[in-house]
């Protein structure tokens, strides 16, 4: 009846706030509010109700057998522990999330490698005053003038000058 251990994990609320994207702040706040409300309710309720003084009632209730009957039924009554249908869902969600996070991390790592390669390339270009226009077009391909699309000088739309 009583004496179940409640295993609660300690939550770092700051970290929790960090991982929420800005468009889901409302949901996160409601989660936090629920958590606090439940903690306060839990604190108010003692773990088990006080014991009923059967001797007193047996002595004082005139109807014979009523108290005995009650006592028997009360002791036989087992209150069902509410069944936990939802932790499984949360666990499944967490597993999926771990998978997507691992995917994201690996993609992110490849992205970081590409970025680092670009940074190295940028750092190693020759100084600008020793470049020719061909070298410039190699480093910054967007500076290459399109001579097929604009065959006449200045090889780009006049508005962009």
């Amino acid at each position: 009846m009583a004496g179940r251990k409640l295993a609660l994990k300690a939550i770092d609320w700051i970290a929790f706030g960090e991982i929420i994207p800005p468009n889901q702040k409302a949901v996160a706040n409601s989660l936090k509010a629920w958590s606090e409300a439940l903690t306060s309710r839990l604190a108010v309720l003692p773990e088990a109700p006080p014991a009923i003084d059967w001797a007193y009632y047996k002595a004082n209730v005139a109807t014979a057998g009523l108290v005995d009957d009650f006592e028997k039924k009360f002791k036989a009554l087992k209150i069902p522990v509410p069944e936990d249908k939802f932790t499984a869902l949360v666990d499944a969600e967490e597993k999926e999330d771990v998978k997507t996070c691992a995917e994201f991390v690996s993609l992110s790592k490849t992205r970081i490698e590409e970025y680092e390669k670009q940074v190295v390339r940028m750092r190693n270009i020759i100084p600008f005053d020793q470049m020719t226009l061909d070298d410039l077009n190699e480093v910054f391909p967007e500076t290459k003038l399109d001579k097929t699309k604009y065959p006449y000088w200045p090889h780009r739309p006049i508005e962009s000058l």
Partner: protein
Amino acid sequence: MLSRVVLSAAATEAPALKNAALLGPGALQTARIFHTGQPSLAPVPPLPEYGGKVRFGLIPEEFFQFLYPKTGVTGPYMLGTGLILYFLSKEIYVVTAEMFSSIATIGLLIYGIKKYGPSVAEFADKLNEDKLAKLEEAKQASIKSIQDAIDMEKAQQALVQKRHYLFDVQRNNIAMSLEVTYRERLHRVYREVKNRLDYHISVQNVARRKEQEHMISWVEKSVVQSISAQQERETIAKCIQDLQLLAKKAQAQPVM
């Protein structure tokens, strides 16, 4: 002069080298036959910014150095003066009207260049430097944006470590709500049973009190009824007698 020969040779070779670099490796093999120096594919060395030194804007310095061991400092000047006088006197160079117009024109040009040359050169250099500065800025901005992207990716990766808090909160909430429901049920059962028992007891108490009161009132009524009028008169007379006795006794006491 020799250095300038080398430089001009390098300049003429340099475009050829660049073109060779642009051709494929197969084409380079066939072009290799015509190159005598080693075909260096390294980046072209920067071209010198200033040409060789010249005197009078025409005669390179190396000529003076060439003549210095034999004729000293004034040698080339003497050679020049002698040559000019020779051309004039032998009429190899004919004096015409154009000579004076060319003297005036060239004099004016030299005056103009000497006076305004440096400032114009500065202006042109500044234009060039502005272009270079813009390109440099673009390069730095590009590097910085890539670095920022890298940092953001790293931050996101760090956040991934904290994702589990989300699910911890949900699991905690579920566990807490289950526990709260269970405890509330326990308390409710206790309350209901106690209420029922207390109800019985209070019903009993009420019944007993009612019986008591009823019995008392009934007993009183019956006693009062049983006192007939005769007995009442006798009782009252006896009471008066007793009172009178008591009064006498009471009066007697203080006298003593």
